[in-house]
Each structure stands twice: as structure tokens, then as C-alpha cells.
């Protein structure tokens, strides 16, 4: 056996450890339990639940942007699908049907749009999704027969679990859903499908050369982002007590995009960390009054230009520095 280099240094392995698919959900569930134990006030719990809801929605988006490398500005349409499906069906047909309906609706839209649009280059696809999101808003605002227009749909009920009621119940449901989608995210990461997405992002010709259908993996990623967005949208509707067009406008699509970008594309903790930054931070920076959105916008620009790896990049740098000073 010939070796090229002199004695190799101590064996390391940068492949993602398989345990994360169990560890992360476990940590999330434990964290959720802790939060309930601490019993924060109603305002704080509401904020935290909203964060978790967006984290659920952003998990699929993290896959889209982080694994497959696709930028979409239109996922508000899928949030709306989930939210309105819940609003219309939950009280009559129960939570499971409502959630499923939202998921299926979002998946169908995503599959159709994906097949038609994903052959476009990055920039054109982004514009197309913007158009899609805009159309979604127009439909939601104007199809009053179904969506009740700007007035929205109220009295939508929420998931009751473990005998809890009110926001705590929604919180628990949200945490459970987040644990579930996080498991799926990790399983995907180390599976052939996920790996195909990743190499399809880095190097489409090389991917095709290995037998990967890049177009197919992109559509799959897009559909996954739609599915989790629908779940998140349903949670958002429950939390707000109703489905309203404003919740699902382009700004929410931009929030979904910003979450993995600021936190670190593809990082397993990006959905939660990002959602905390995007959703919770503005709530707690109220002293900045209206300027908090300015800070938010500026942060997005700076991260995009100067810190492309987001929070994850910072965390990794710190961990490396600590590792070096120790060893």
C-alpha cells in the first residue's frame, strides 16, 4: 500500500455523527419540558411558541437552502396553505385531518411549481418564487368565499395535548413537531437522498456524472420545505387564534429565508437558532422601537456579505479556538 504523505496525524472524523438524529430531538423535548417547568409568563411563552412554530417551518427550508442550495422567496404560500387548511378544517374534522390536508396541499403546489420552475437558474428561480408568493397573497386576500379575505378566519381551535390547554398546549405540540422534523432532517442528511442534494448544490455536472438527477433532488427539497412550512403555518394560525393574510405575506417568506442564512445554512440547529434571532429578538429589542427592523435588515446584509456561514461559522470558530488552546 503506497501512501502519499508522511505519517498521518491522529485520526479525526468530520462526518456528521449518527447520534444526532436521536440526540437533537431528545434535547429539544427536554428543553421543552424545562421551559414548561420554569413556567414563563404568558407573553414569553407565546413568543417562545412562535419561535418553535417558525423553527418547524424553517427546518424544511433549511434543507432547501442548506442542502440543495436553492433560494426561494415564496414559501409564504406554503405557510398559508397550512394555516388556512387548519383554520377551515380543524374544528370540523380534527387536528390530524387539518394538518394532513395542509401538508398535502402545500406538497402538491410545491411539486407542480418545482417541476416547472426548478430548471431555472438561481436568480430567475428566486424571482419566480417571489411571483408565486405574491400570487398566493392575492388569492388569499381575494378569494373571500374560502378565506374570508382580509378579515380572516377566527375560532380555529388548537391542538390539545396531555390535558393542557391554551398556549402551553400549542407549545407542547410545536415542540413535538419540531423534534419530529429535526429527526427527519438528520436522517436525511446522512442518507443518499440528502447527500445527492448536497452534491447537486456544490457541483451539478459532477453530480450528474455520478448518476444523481439534480432536477429530481431539487424538487424533493422544495416539496420538503413546503411540507414543514405547512406544519408551521398551522401552528402559527393556532397561536394567533385565526388565519389572516398578513401572517402569510412576503415578509414571512423573507423571514423563513433569513432564518437559515443568519444561523448558518444547513446547520442542524439553524432552524431553532435562526428563528430565535428573527422572531424573538425583535420582540425583546422593543426599546429600539421601529429601528429593530432596520437592525434586522442591516444584520441580514452584513451576514450575507461578510459572514456567509452565519452564527454557525462563529460557533465553529470559537470551538476551534477552544479546542486548540486545550490541546
Amino acid at each position, binding site marked *: 500500500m503506497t501512501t502519499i504523505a508522511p505519517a498521518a496525524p491522529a485520526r479525526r472524523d468530520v462526518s456528521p455523527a449518527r447520534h444526532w438524529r436521536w440526540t437533537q430531538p431528545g434535547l429539544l423535548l427536554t428543553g421543552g419540558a424545562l421551559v414548561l417547568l420554569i413556567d414563563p409568563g404568558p407573553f414569553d411563552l407565546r413568543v417562545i411558541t412562535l419561535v418553535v412554530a417558525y423553527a418547524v417551518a424553517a427546518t424544511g427550508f433549511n434543507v432547501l437552502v442548506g442542502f440543495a442550495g436553492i433560494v426561494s*422567496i415564496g414559501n409564504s404560500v406554503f405557510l398559508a396553505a397550512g394555516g388556512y387548511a387548519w383554520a377551515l378544517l380543524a374544528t370540523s374534522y380534527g387536528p390530524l385531518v387539518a394538518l394532513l390536508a395542509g401538508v398535502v396541499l402545500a406538497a402538491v403546489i410545491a411539486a407542480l411549481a418545482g417541476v416547472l420552475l426548478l430548471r*431555472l*437558474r438561481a436568480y430567475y428561480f428566486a424571482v419566480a418564487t417571489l411571483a408565486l408568493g*405574491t400570487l398566493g397573497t*392575492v388569492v388569499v386576500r381575494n378569494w373571500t368565499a374560502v378565506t374570508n379575505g382580509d378579515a380572516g378566519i377566527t375560532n380555529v381551535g388548537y391542538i390539545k395535548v396531555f390535558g393542557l390547554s391554551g398556549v402551553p398546549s400549542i407549545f407542547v405540540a410545536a415542540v413535538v413537531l419540531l423534534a419530529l422534523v429535526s429527526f427527519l432532517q438528520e436522517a436525511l442528511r446522512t442518507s443518499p437522498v440528502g447527500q445527492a442534494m448536497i452534491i447537486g448544490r456544490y457541483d451539478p455536472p459532477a453530480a450528474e456524472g455520478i448518476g444523481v438527477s439534480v432536477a429530481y433532488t431539487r424538487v424533493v427539497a422544495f416539496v420538503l420545505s413546503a411540507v414543514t412550512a405547512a406544519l408551521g403555518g398551522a401552528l402559527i394560525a393556532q397561536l394567533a387564534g385565526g388565519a389572516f393574510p398578513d401572517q402569510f405575506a412576503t415578509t414571512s417568506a*423573507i423571514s423563513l*429565508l433569513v432564518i437559515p442564512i443568519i444561523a448558518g445554512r444547513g446547520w442542524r440547529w439553524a432552524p431553532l437558532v435562526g428563528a430565535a434571532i428573527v422572531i424573538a429578538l425583535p420582540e425583546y429589542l422593543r426599546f429600539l422601537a*421601529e429601528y429593530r427592523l432596520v437592525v*434586522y*435588515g442591516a444584520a441580514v446584509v452584513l451576514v450575507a456579505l461578510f459572514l456567509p456561514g452565519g452564527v454557525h461559522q462563529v460557533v465553529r470558530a470559537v470551538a476551534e479556538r477552544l479546542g486548540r488552546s486545550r490541546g
Partner: protein
Amino acid sequence: MNQLIYFVIIGLGIGAVYALAGLGVVTLFTGSGLANFAQGDLMVLGALVAVSVTSAGHGYVAGLLAAVAVVAVAGVLLGALFTLPMRHRRMDVDVVIIGTLGVATTMTTLAGIWWGRQPQRLDSPLAGVFVPVGEMRVPAHYVLLLVGAAVVFGLVRWFHRRTDIGLQLRAVASSVPAARDAGVRIGRMLVVAWTIAALVGGVAGVLVASVLPIAPESALPLGVNGFAAAIIGGLANPAGAVLGGLVVGLAETLAGGYLNDTVRQSVAPLVLLVVLVLRPGGLLGRARGARTV
């Protein structure tokens, strides 16, 4: 019949604004291969600056000039922001998309803080003047829109074709490697491209503010319409953007007049989607690298 003519004139007028919005998109795209999700905000910026200056009593022209100045500065800043850090890195499309989205958010919010979120109108210099069409009267400002758009288009075209800087811009638009081999300073040209795009957007904003009330939130729909106009022409074709703008403006106005508001609002995004799905190169342009797989 007269109603049709009325709608057509209005539609063309609005279309002229979209044409300018689209021209801004195309100018940047041909100069740099990028496009700016904050283009709508530049239009809003121009409009609101003009409103402030004119309501302070300085007159329409002063408002226009002030808007132009402010927007030019914004353009230079944006150009520098998106060019300088990129000098030693490969320009990543994602970065520009996300970065300009961030800029858009910031600008929309700042505009809301500085000018409030209420829609504002700019009094036209031709207020009170009407063009008779049968029994109907079209505000003369719509004609001004068309004339203004034509003037801007002509100026940009003159600049591109007759000045040395325009020559270099066209070289960069044709092929960055060829331009680089010829010794063109690519970074500076990119900043110029951004500035021109901003100027075009700013003027468009001032013009449209007399027929549409403008609020910070108008940035997004204006941006979408600008993209729709530009896409019809294939993103690389200024004349195509003008045509596209007129088409979208006409379609919207006719839809709004004869059908209903929902259809009117759907025109621009639908046009975008349909064109992208069927002919990504635009109805007029070549399929210039729009597709990948």
C-alpha cells in the same frame, strides 16, 4: 370605445412607469449579471424625497432634482457595498439576492420611519390639465409619464452608446473576461451600473407618485412589476423591458377596468411565472443562460 381609449392611455402611462422600473432592472443586469430586490425601494425613495421637497414649497423640479441626488448616492453606496467585498471572492448570486433583500427590508422600514406609512401623492406640474378623449378626460400627467420614460430611456441609451464610460459598461455587459482582458476596471463599472439603475428607479418613482399614492409598502409590488416588465424582454434587453412594461401596464389597467381587481393584481406575477416557465429567455430575448438543467 372611448372607455377603451381611456384605459389604453392610462395603461400605457402606468406601463411607462413599469417600463422604467424594468429598465432599472435590466440596466443592472446587463451591467453586472445581477439584479436588485431593492429596486422598488429606490423608486419609493425617489418618490418620497420629491414629495418632501415639494410639500416644503420648493416646486416640482426641485423635488425631482433632490430625488435624483439622493437616489444617486444610494446607488453608489449599494454598488460599493455589493462590489468591494466581492473583489476577492467569486460573486455568488445567493449573496446578492439575500443581501438586496436585506437592503430592501432596511429601506422599507427606514422609509416608514422617516415618512410614515401613509401613502403620499406628489402634485403633478400638470395638475388640472386634461387630455380630452371623447367625453372622458385623461389627466395630462399620464402623457408626462410616457414622455418622461422616453426621455430617460433616451438618456440611458445615449450614455451607453456615446460616452466612454458607457462603452466600458457595454464591454462588461457583453463579457466580463473580455472586458477584463481589455483592461476595463470592472469594479468601478459595476458601481456605475448600480448608480444608473438607481437613478432610473428614482426618476420612475417621482413620475409615478403623481398617479399612484406611494407608501413604503409600495416597494414590493413595484419591484415585482419591474421584474415582470424586464423578464418579458429577457432581462438583457432594454427595449424589451420598455415593451414589457407597457404590456403589463396595459394588461393591468384593462383587467382592472373590465374584469376585477383580483385579476388586476394577479397580472404581473402571472406574467412573470408564465414567461419564466415557457420562455425563460423572455419573449424577445435569447435564452441567455436562464436555464441550467
